């Protein structure tokens, strides 16, 4: 039973919520409002004179622009590939760690570390590792490899591939920890029951583990998708600012910062929001307990 709080409790609740809401308003709500408004104007560094309201013209222009669709495709491919790989690896790691064995703590720590390694600088480390200075001992070997990859798949493929590898390395660790926490949250009796019911590990995995983990998998997918779309800095760093395969993030950044087209860039960045909202609603549906537990 959820007991309704007294009026004083409710006032206190709003008071306690206010610092968080203030931060969200200043740092998120206002900037998003500005972005939405700007996406409907022709604000640009190249244009003098008053800013004009142009309605959805920026969006219409995007829809007709092949470069946009190329960037959108690149983004979807990037998000899909990295999310699938992160989920597969993360689930694999979590299942490896699910039951006790000797050395489990060490393996757990090893799997935990990539997620904890500060990405703001590990991206530089990865850049260095995969594109070493020419004097470094293994530079000729990696140079060759880069050449082979780029000539087979087109210029920039090596850079894009390294972004994907980096994202998977880091993300799979976070997802593994999240799913491990999820597995721990499931009562062990359910797994023991499953063990009695079926001898086939694959059936147990498909019919018991996956359905029980569904909400956590959904959470992992959501966080992985949003971070993949927002993953601008990593692409920027690992490709040293040379955007060969544009994704929406880098393309929007380029439009605004290099080309000064605030209106068009804002519209571009916002085009991913509806998609995220749909994913989020699905997530809430999955996280919602089927029968509300008594509080």
């Amino acid at each position: 039973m959820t007991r309704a709080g007294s009026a004083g409790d409710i006032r206190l609740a709003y008071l306690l919520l206010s610092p968080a809401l203030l931060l969200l308003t200043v740092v998120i709500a206002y900037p998003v409002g500005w972005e939405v408004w700007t996406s409907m104007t022709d604000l640009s560094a190249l244009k003098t004179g008053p800013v004009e309201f142009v309605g959805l013209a920026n969006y219409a222009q995007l829809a007709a622009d092949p470069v946009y669709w190329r960037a959108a495709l690149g983004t979807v491919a990037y998000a899909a590939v990295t999310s699938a790989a992160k989920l597969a690896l993360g689930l694999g790691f979590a299942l490896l760690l699910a039951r006790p064995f000797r050395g489990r703590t060490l393996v757990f720590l090893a799997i935990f570390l990539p997620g904890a390694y500060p990405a703001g600088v590990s991206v530089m480390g990865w850049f260095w590792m995969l594109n070493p200075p020419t004097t470094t001992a293994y530079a000729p070997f990696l140079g060759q490899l880069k050449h082979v990859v780029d000539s087979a798949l087109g210029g920039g493929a090596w850079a894009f591939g390294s972004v994907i590898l980096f994202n998977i390395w880091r993300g799979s660790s976070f997802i593994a920890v999240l799913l491990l926490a999820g597995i721990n949250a499931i009562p062990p009796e359910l797994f023991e029951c499953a063990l009695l019911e079926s001898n086939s590990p694959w059936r147990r995995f498909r019919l018991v583990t996956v359905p029980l983990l569904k909400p956590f998998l959904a959470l992992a997918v959501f966080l992985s998708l949003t971070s993949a779309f927002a993953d601008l800095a990593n692409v920027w760093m690992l490709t040293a600012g040379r955007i060969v395969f544009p994704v929406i993030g880098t393309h929007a950044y380029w439009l605004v910062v290099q080309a000064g087209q605030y209106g068009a860039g804002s519209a571009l960045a916002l085009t991913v929001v509806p998609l995220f909202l749909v994913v989020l609603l699905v997530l809430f549906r999955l996280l919602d307990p089927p029968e509300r537990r008594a509080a």
Partner: protein
Amino acid sequence: MNPRPWWVKLGHRSLAALAAAYCLFPIYFMLVQSLKTPREDVFGNPFIVVSPTLENFEELFEREGEVRGFVGSALRRSYPFADWLVNTLIVFTGSILATLVTSVAAAYALGRLRPPGFRWWRRGIFAVYVIPQTLLFIPLYQVVHTLGLDDNLVVLLLIYPTMALPFCVWMLSAYFQLLPREIEEAALIEGANRATAFFRIILPMSRPVLVAAGIFTLGIVASDFMIVSVFLLTPTNQTITAGLGTFDVSLEELGAVAGVNLLAIPVVTISALFARSYVRGLTAAMIEGA
């Protein structure tokens, strides 16, 4: 548990070893590079270091005029690395504290006091993650400028907590909601007020979840590269991440890698110390769900 055949055990062990190697290799590799002398960097085996040196780390702290090494002072800039270190410490601890205070307050409101529609509040706050952060820094810059906080570390103490808040509020409030009401009510009957009951009973019971929230925040703070580079411009005001971003990686190779490690090693160590609590906290929050 029923006994498993040896080949299942062996398979499990080797997969675990493989996973560990995959996760650790890049970290190991970066560490090894940063310990190399320039000579070994050019002629040595890339995977091991024969005569480790801390020279690359020392170089980061050298002031102008005391430059050594064969690259020479003409090519080397000197970096206010000590300043970066202090700034990084301020930003990291400050952001984590600010996040914990604001999200614990909000989570207590949503999980214990439960104003009307508290589930929707929680979901609304979590929904912040649908907003792509790519371009937010432009309007944010206006806000920062209006507040007169240009080139000031305080900006980060506003932005990072906001990025970490939604997840922390969601997790903490789910946990608070799960604690039985009787715990608090018993204290209230004994004559304690709400604040005492909170600080003496609820907070100590929530330690793993608080640790989880702190480690999550540390992850957010440590992984940002964009915001810190956009908002902190003066070299002495920068953090390690922003400062390293100004390195020319191909010229200052080993120094840059040393800088990476200098930030990464403490962060990784702290996270590793709390790793178990982190998982326990996540689990506790997940039992309740949304």
